[in-house]
């Protein structure tokens, strides 16, 4: 039986594969929002995505586009075009696709954790934070009325090793952009270029309500660190998060403000939940 999907979840673009993992002549069968989908790249390079029935019958062709190193599709009719990331047009940064981590929780828990500052010293100990430097200074989380996106700004945190290329501890500035419910991009002080930002992106592909493939990329000013080292750094951090994410109860993100108890350091989480509530999202929340 196919579950009824709400517009807020269905009318979104989702990553289902990285471009590099779908070479010519290959197909990838996966799940999206509890449905079966197959992405195929023909020998001539043509890309197609189909929704399949449980028995493997073709149901319909789905929209497809390839951007930012990923294959995107949708099961609905998104009101907006896929969000723009102008940084991909700028010179000097390097794109590294950091692989997929499967996480047994809802996509909203994953994005909320990505926006969380105060867990750094406890989950990413001696990498993204360290006791006793645990204070979270006030920052802003606001809805951008024009774009409809959530932005978290003015974040600062002391990090022992902010990025793979970091040579030591540093006070790091963070800005988070949440262009759509299950995608987020982090702009973070670059150790490779004074005054510039590196990007770390996270695209959650909900396979089911509480099971996701998380796709992650880096777009960095870094000529020295190898791809393997960057991937290892990013995956190492994400595996630490996974232990948390798979042990939060309930797995679906509670949107009722009284369900859990936030502190002022959780401004990003509070606003993220409010933003999701405002969109009428029901998939993977409660």
């Amino acid at each position, binding site marked *: 039986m196919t579950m009824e999907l709400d517009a807020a979840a269905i009318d979104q673009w989702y990553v289902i594969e990285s471009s590099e993992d779908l070479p010519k002549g290959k197909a990838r069968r996966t799940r999206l929002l509890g449905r079966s989908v197959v992405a195929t790249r023909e020998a001539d390079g043509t890309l197609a995505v189909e929704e399949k029935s449980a028995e493997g019958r073709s149901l319909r062709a789905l929209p497809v586009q390839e951007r930012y190193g990923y294959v995107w599709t949708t099961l609905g009719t998104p009101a907006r075009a896929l969000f723009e990331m102008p940084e991909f047009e700028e010179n000097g940064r390097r794109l590294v696709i950091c692989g997929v981590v499967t996480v047994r929780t809802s996509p909203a828990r994953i994005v909320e954790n990505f926006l969380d*500052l*105060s867990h750094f010293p*406890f989950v990413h100990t001696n990498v993204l934070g360290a006791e006793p430097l645990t204070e979270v200074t006030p920052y802003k989380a606001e809805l951008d009325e024009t774009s409809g996106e959530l932005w978290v700004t003015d974040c600062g945190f002391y990090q022992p090793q902010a990025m793979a290329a970091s040579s030591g501890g540093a006070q790091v500035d963070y800005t988070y952009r949440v262009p759509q419910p299950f995608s987020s991009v982090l702009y973070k002080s670059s150790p490779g270029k004074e005054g510039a930002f590196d990007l770390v992106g996270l695209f959650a592909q909900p396979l089911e309500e509480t099971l996701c493939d998380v796709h992650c990329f880096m777009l960095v000013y870094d000529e020295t660190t190898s791809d393997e080292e960057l991937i290892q750094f990013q995956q190492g951090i994400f595996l630490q998060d996974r*232990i*948390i994410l798979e042990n939060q*109860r309930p797995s679906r993100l509670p949107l009722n403000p009284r369900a859990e108890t*936030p*502190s002022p350091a959780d401004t990003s989480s509070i606003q993220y939940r409010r933003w999701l509530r405002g969109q009428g999202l029901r998939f993977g929340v409660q």
Partner: protein
Amino acid sequence: MTQHKLEWHAVSGGSDLPAGSARAVTLQGQDIAIWRGASGAVQAWRNQCPHRGMRLSFGQVRGERLSCRYHGWQFDETGHCAFMPAHRESTPPASIRVPSYGSMEAAGLIWVNLEGGEGSAFESGAAFGSHDLFCKSIYVASALEPLACRLRTALPNGEQLSHSLLRVAASQEEGPPDDLVIALQDMTDDRCGLHLVACSSGAEETDRQTRLAVARWARRLRT
């Protein structure tokens, strides 16, 4: 037949929860964090941080407080939040509290009372008598009633003391090497724990031998 339902339930051997550690146990479908402070006191809490839902059994025991693995919120032995690392100078509101269950340690085991258990008597005390040497916990795929029934039949010297307690006399045949009390833990509809308790001899080496012999004998209970 209606049997008197015990309020206190065995959930772990006492020595399986060393000072300064935390672990998860399941009792009647409830996910429970048990932890032991540096002083030796045992607590049993709902296994969910009130902040962002992280299971507290992953937490770190710091003195007489349990610190959540996710954001380091510290809860004192009454379950009240005592420290939020993101706000080092501020006092957490008194309303932030982890729901707790009754907990106690007796007869070598840790016991939990889901109703709170303040001031309620430990009904099983008499059944244990001088049994206080925890030997081994084993876990089987079965509901509680059929398991108790099966054990009663399978163990010739078995005597059911209550719906979740059995006494088994030592014997040369199928019985255990020592007189045992077995406390059953109703975890879920298809899973139970068995906590095996013998009598302590008072001598460390003899007790060690008893534990080993009981553990070896207990393998048969799994099937």
